[in-house]
């Protein structure tokens, strides 16, 4: 393994992020080729964290642009500080400057409020720019984004063209609610993050819920693997697993049983429909699967969990 990739992997580990080799390699390549990194995967597999960790690894600032339906270019770039402009107009009322001069003043850089994209390209030291959930923006915004990411310069009518002082490290994430355009895809390196394996999730639980007993952590990780075999509206991700671990500890539980799981169902399943289906259809099967797992000697493995799931007809 390239020493730098190993270093990134260790660094990610140090930040509490359990990264497999794909992730470390992609981050490394994105940093060394200076190309944007597009990360796709189901919700809750830790896409956003990659950017955060990357910023820490580089010692750079993280600038985040959260995309949403209707997000437009100006909101992402800059706005004028209207209050300050109005105040300035009042204060210079008595001066003998012409309207044109005063207009020029209030549309200067002092009155500019930088929004994430402009912020990212005007920093002295290259920051990490996280464009989160880019699939939620509409395709017009995507085209605009592509333009900014190609040239790293923007034009503000009143001021002129602003060129990037340094090229930011760009990370884009997508939950695939909308297929992104080919142009944007091709401009980026690509990383697909899968739901974690049993081993990886166990490591995450142990790392993120300090003080959890290893036995319970194993049961939690195993249970989550069973859960993800089911077809649900919203499959719980890593964040849910971590929350669940914390909830179980707060309740001082040291093993999983029906009562405990039912009590904490809301941590894992965030829709009423899912909670209902789980109660009626899946919980019994999962509990039986868990029983079977418990009968096996530790440490458990992904292969073992999958076998148990297959035997228990837990897949849909």
């Amino acid at each position: 393994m390239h020493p730098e990739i190993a270093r990134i992997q260790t660094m990610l580990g140090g930040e509490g992020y359990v990264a497999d080799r794909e992730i470390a390699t992609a981050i490394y390549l994105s940093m060394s080729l200076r190309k944007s990194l597009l990360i796709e995967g189901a919700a809750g597999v830790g896409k956003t964290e990659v950017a955060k960790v990357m910023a820490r690894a580089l010692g750079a600032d993280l600038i985040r642009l959260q995309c949403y339906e209707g997000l437009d270019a100006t909101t992402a770039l800059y706005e004028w500080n209207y209050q300050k402009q109005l105040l300035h107009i009042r204060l210079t009322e008595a001066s003998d400057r012409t309207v044109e001069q005063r207009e020029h003043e209030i549309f200067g850089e002092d009155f500019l409020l930088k929004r994430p994209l402009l912020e990212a390209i005007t920093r002295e030291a290259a920051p990490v720019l996280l464009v989160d959930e880019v699939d939620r923006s509409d395709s017009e915004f995507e085209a605009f984004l592509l333009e900014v990411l190609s040239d790293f310069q923007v034009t503000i009518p009143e001021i002129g063209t602003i060129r990037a002082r340094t090229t930011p490290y760009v990370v884009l994430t997508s939950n695939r609610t909308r297929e992104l355009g080919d142009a944007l895809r091709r401009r980026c390196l690509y990383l697909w993050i899968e739901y974690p394996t049993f081993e990886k999730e166990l490591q995450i639980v142990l790392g993120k819920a300090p003080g959890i007993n290893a036995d319970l952590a194993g049961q939690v990780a195993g249970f989550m693997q069973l859960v993800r075999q089911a077809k649900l509206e919203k499959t719980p991700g890593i964040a849910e697993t971590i929350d669940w671990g914390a909830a179980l500890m707060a309740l001082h539980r040291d093993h999983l049983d029906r009562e405990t799981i039912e009590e904490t169902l809301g941590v894992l399943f965030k829709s009423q429909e899912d909670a209902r289906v789980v109660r009626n259809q899946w919980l019994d099967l999962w509990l039986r699967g868990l029983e079977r797992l418990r009968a096996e000697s530790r440490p458990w493995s992904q292969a073992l969990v999958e076998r148990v799931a297959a035997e228990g007809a837990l897949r849909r």
Partner: protein
Amino acid sequence: MKATRSGNLAANVVAFTRLLRHRGLPVGPREASDALRALSAVDLLDRREVYVALRTVLVDSRQHFDRFDEAFREFWGAEEEETRPESQPPDGMTPEETAEAEQVLRKWLEAESQNPEGDETQETPGYSPAEILTRKDFSALSSEELHAITTLVTQIARRVATRMSRRMRAVRRAHLLDMRRTVRHSLRRGGEIMELLRRRRRIQKTQVVLLCDVSGSMDLYSRFLVQFVFALQHAVSKVETFVFSTSLTRVTDALSDAELSRALDRVARTVPNWSGGTKIGHSLRQFLELYGRQLLGDRTVVIVISDGWDTGDVEALEAAMRELNRRSARVIWLNPLLGGVGYAPLCQGMRAALPHVDVFAPAHNLDSLRRLERHLALPR
């Protein structure tokens, strides 16, 4: 990877990208040069690392992973080590399941066309065999044609979607405060804001609700409509999709997958009564009760696709249709039989529903799908 050192490497990478392009991956000179740069930055003796690096640079979507893996093994030679790290196959599907899924899909693409005048038409009373021949419609397509048409449906939907979004921009009318212009104006009045200037705002997207009859006679048409609207939704609207025969199932989530063929197959597996009998009234009532509050409103277009052959309660159907009409901006009923020469909506169910339908249109071939466009855009 032994033979890929120094001078050789560049030639090999170029040859490899050419192979990928040949296999249909969008890989050009830029990617090839990135690949070279990537390889110069990783440990070349580490096969796994080379694999990951090349995949990161050369593949731009997960759906191409398999093709890449295959080409990689072929070009750089197979090795005992498995190239896919996750012991879990993507999306939790086992190879058997994947194979099964493919089979289901292939069956769909082929089975229907093998008996163009078979079961389907016999189950559907009300029109003569002669009409079937004059309707050059989906059910009369050969398996090659079905393949081609699947792509076509998506293409047409894309074009329609582009046009629609352009039109929507032209009719924006809701107003937002434009502070930039307001401040500029106030300059001339010493900073006194005398007038609030406004700018146009993008209008709210239309909510489309799709209710598809998937009972025996409607199965094929519904699949095409689902596909059509699915392709539309990426660009233009919020779409909620339901299928019904004897009862209603919400399939929006099963469809919210970028890869449509897989999504369609998933629908087939999620819906318990795909191709059963039909209880339209009951199903619509179910929709109204469970989803009406959330989805219906003055920005909602409801599309029902069904032939109107109801084996349930006709009064229930009429009542449900009346309510549906009252609570939405527009109700479109698509009936594939309408494309047939001389078809009149005489069956009881259809007659009961018609007074409460704003647009009654055919949906039996590509052309009729294309014409759906003008009914989907709501004026503002």
